[in-house]
């Protein structure tokens, strides 16, 4: 493989890996605080794409602003889903929350079919993302280059929120011990809303970059990325943010590398993800960064 192609593949793999990481974080932080697998997370990811699509399609607002507004709307959607769908079940047996999450996922998918239509739509994005830049003789599509950069900035922002703000402190405390956090004066409802907001915001950023990479969207577009990101979170150790990042990066990066080095195996790339899952869980059942409770 020529060096320039290798660099392209590395960037491509890093980008996909980081996209999975952004989505996986949403699963892991919600699980960390509520012990709930939010099956609707992949569909929140899908909704973010449609928010940008309709914003850019129906209004004269510039694309960049549409993208920012869509992130805001997705955060609102995530917070609302928790408020309406999950909060009334707080304290109920865990299986009730699980059912609610699966139901919410079906609801969002079918809502999208009815309102947006089931036929795939071309996702519009600024031409600049398609521009080929040449760095040191290597040709790279702008989006391939921008994706990892935006993801890393988002992760730095997340790190700041979690480790330097009061709400982040509340989140980390509540994820260990709900009751003690409450007795310290932490407002649990606010903290849970904050958590859903962060998870949904990261999913929205991931979704927009995803749609610019693979520019066709439909109501089920979130299903497979969602499952893989969830798998990534489990590989990393569900509940651990670093684990979600590592797991996401691992499966994204190695999927691209597998296809690059063994094109004949590309049909098995999804199988490959789940092989990583099985091997990880066999060797370390709590996941890479997970701890026993």
């Amino acid at each position, binding site marked *: 493989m020529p060096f320039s192609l290798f660099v392209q593949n590395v960037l491509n793999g890093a980008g996909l890996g980081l996209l999975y990481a952004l989505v996986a974080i949403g699963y892991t932080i919600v699980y960390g605080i509520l012990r709930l697998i939010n099956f609707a997370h992949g569909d929140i990811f899908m909704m973010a794409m449609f928010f940008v699509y309709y914003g850019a399609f129906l209004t004269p607002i510039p694309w960049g602003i549409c993208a920012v507004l869509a992130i805001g709307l997705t955060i609102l959607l995530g917070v609302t889903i928790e408020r309406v769908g999950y909060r009334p079940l707080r304290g109920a047996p865990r299986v009730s929350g699980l059912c609610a999450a699966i139901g919410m996922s079906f609801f969002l998918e079918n809502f999208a079919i009815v309102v947006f239509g089931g036929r795939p739509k071309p996702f519009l994005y600024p031409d600049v993302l398609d521009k080929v830049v040449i760095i040191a003789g290597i040709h790279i599509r702008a989006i391939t280059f921008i994706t990892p950069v935006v993801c890393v900035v988002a992760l730095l922002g997340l790190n700041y929120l979690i480790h330097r703000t*009061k709400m982040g*402190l*509340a989140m*980390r*405390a509540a*994820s*260990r*011990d709900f*009751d*003690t*956090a*409450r*007795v*310290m*004066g*932490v*407002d649990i409802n606010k903290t849970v809303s904050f958590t859903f907001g962060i998870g949904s915001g990261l999913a929205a950023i991931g979704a927009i970059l995803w749609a610019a990479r693979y520019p066709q969207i439909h109501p089920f577009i979130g299903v497979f990325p969602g499952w893989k990101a969830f798998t990534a979170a489990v590989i990393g150790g569900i509940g651990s943010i670093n684990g979600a990042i590592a797991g996401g990066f691992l499966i994204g990066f190695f999927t691209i590398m597998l296809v690059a080095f063994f094109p004949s195996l590309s049909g098995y790339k999804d199988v490959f993800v789940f092989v990583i899952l099985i091997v990880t869980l066999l060797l370390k059942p709590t996941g890479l960064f997970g701890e026993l409770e």
Partner: protein
Amino acid sequence: MLKIKNLNVFYGGIHALQGISLDVPKGKIVTLIGANGAGKSTTLRTLSGLVKARDGQIKLDGEEILGLPSNEIVARGVAMVPEGRKIFPNLTVRENLAIGAFQRNNKAEISKDEELVFTLFPRIKERVSQKGGTLSGGEQQMLAVGRALMSHPKLLTLDEPSLGLAPLLVKGVFDIIKHIHEEGRTVFLVEQNAFAALKLADYAYVMEVGKITLQGTGQELLQNDQVRKAYLGG
């Protein structure tokens, strides 16, 4: 300062608190003693809003706080040292203290209280950047008390602070409680270690299966035959 009246709490079908009433006057140490399962912790958990009561009153400085969410109760000046310390193992010592001050926003006053905790517990100061989980049991108990003080409470409540500590450390904990009280704070102490608690307390209540069965000054109860037999080993 704190007045609990006719408090009834049910866990499912179990009548855990059966119309208990007690008073914690300003500036005093009041203790609630009793055997395991008598309802002592339930009383504290209801006071801090973790457990819902069926009926009754809990008044703090004349204001009803029963039914308020926990964070509101903390904001009104009730801090708790929970049973088993419950230090956040994933947070640093400094972060554990910071979360104790969660309801407060005045940074200058918060760091003043942090200094106060450090003078009270120099050991904690040495460990500020360590994770809470790496502390020894005794250090964790100090941190749990320090964390509660960080909310600048009117009323400090402690749930079995001596539980699981070596005898020497138990004495240390009671000395600290005494010291905190002498600095003018009101303390409500729930303990199984009746002897130590009664020696310290201005006033004491004895609880048995959901009811308060005896009350009196610490000294009176130390002399009481019933108490001596049941809790002090004769």
